[in-house]
């Protein structure tokens, strides 16, 4: 299942009547099974793009094709779109509402056409996948859980529909380092088992370590895209400055000013560590 985005634009009208272009002529494609990151500064159109991909907004112009079909064409089966794509928006824990965790996670399956046993099995699987003991958690109120637990319940609600494409908007914002790590490992596993993952994030290190391809947005335009390592390599040369550089890249730049020139291809922590080892051990100094 591939996604093709063709000349996609979206504008909205402010209260003052002013028209704001949130996305301007974005074209790209996302292959089945890929792990794609979307990055860019606040207000660049990342969330708008995700909402358009999920079919929650209709484009002002342009098209989104899912497996060759225009999702905004008349007669397109929106129900199948909902079952194909799972979206988790920012701070999803604030969207929990049901009286029990089990009911909350099952909500998205209400109109799925699945029978009760199948729904129960999906809910159990989703909660267990998110690290809960089903019997312990099912009758608890989602509102009584800790912040991290609430977010895991919200993710389980998306997983329960078993979407082929998972989209996350800032999924690790506000999580502690261990929470971040375990979430990123989890979505990597989902991706390895065949789910296409699209992740919007400000976390440069997470995008660099985990995604395979990147889309870079700035002021509503797609200014770069490609393999993650290549994009980060190019970011370093770009005039837009520090945004979009990994910490390892920043250290390489600072070291080159201090007269130690390391390879410009260094992007990740591991790259930097091995370059420094080589440079600073006896072998490298000779």
């Amino acid at each position, binding site marked *: 299942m591939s996604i093709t985005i063709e000349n996609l634009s979206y504008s909205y009208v402010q209260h003052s009547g002013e028209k704001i272009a949130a996305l301007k002529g974005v074209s790209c494609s996302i292959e089945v099974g890929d792990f794609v990151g979307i990055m860019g500064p606040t207000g660049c159109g990342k969330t708008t793009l995700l909402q358009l991909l999920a079919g929650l907004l209709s484009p002002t112009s342009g098209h989104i094709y899912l497996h060759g079909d225009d999702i905004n064409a008349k007669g397109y089966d929106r129900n199948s779109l909902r079952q194909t794509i799972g979206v988790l928006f920012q701070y999803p824990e604030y969207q929990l509402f049901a009286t029990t965790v089990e009911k909350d996670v099952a909500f998205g399956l209400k109109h799925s056409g699945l029978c009760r046993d199948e729904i129960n099995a999906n809910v159990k699987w989703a909660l267990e996948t998110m690290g809960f003991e089903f019997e312990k958690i099912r009758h608890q109120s989602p509102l009584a859980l800790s912040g991290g637990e609430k977010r895991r319940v919200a993710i389980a609600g998306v997983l329960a529909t078993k979407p082929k494409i998972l989209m996350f908007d800032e999924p690790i914002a506000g999580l502690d380092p261990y929470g971040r790590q375990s979430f990123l490992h989890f979505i990597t596993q989902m991706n390895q088992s065949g789910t296409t993952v699209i992740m919007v994030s400000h976390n440069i290190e997470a995008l660099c370590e985990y995604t395979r391809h990147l889309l870079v947005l700035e002021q509503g335009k797609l200014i770069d895209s490609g393999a993650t390592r290549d994009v980060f390599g190019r970011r370093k040369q770009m005039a837009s400055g520090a945004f979009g550089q990994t910490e*390892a890249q920043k*250290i390489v730049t600072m070291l080159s000013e*201090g007269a130690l020139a390391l390879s410009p291809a260094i992007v990740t922590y591991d790259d930097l560590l091995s370059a*420094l080892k080589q440079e600073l051990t006896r072998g490298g100094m000779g």
Partner: protein
Amino acid sequence: MLDPSGRQEVIKIMHKLHKAGKTIIAITHYVEEAVTADKIILMHQGRVLSCGKPQAILSNLELMEAAELMVPMPVRLYYDLQQAGVHLNRCPLTDEELVEEICQLRSKT
């Protein structure tokens, strides 16, 4: 959720207020934000694990692990380089300190 430049802006404002004489108490799990504090109170599950200068706390791997926090990248690099037989003079907390230490080590050889 702030983007990296938004975070930097807020941090700058905190430093400005601090310079103007205000006492600042900032709660964070971004360890990089704690580097410039005068004092860190490290907490885990309702208990204070340690209290002291950033250098003593952020460079202590065991302590940081007990608090389920990651050490800053320069600290991680310091220990990984040490394992490879490269000994920096002191454990750096910031990128600037790391670069300084590496340049110093290079100039000695």
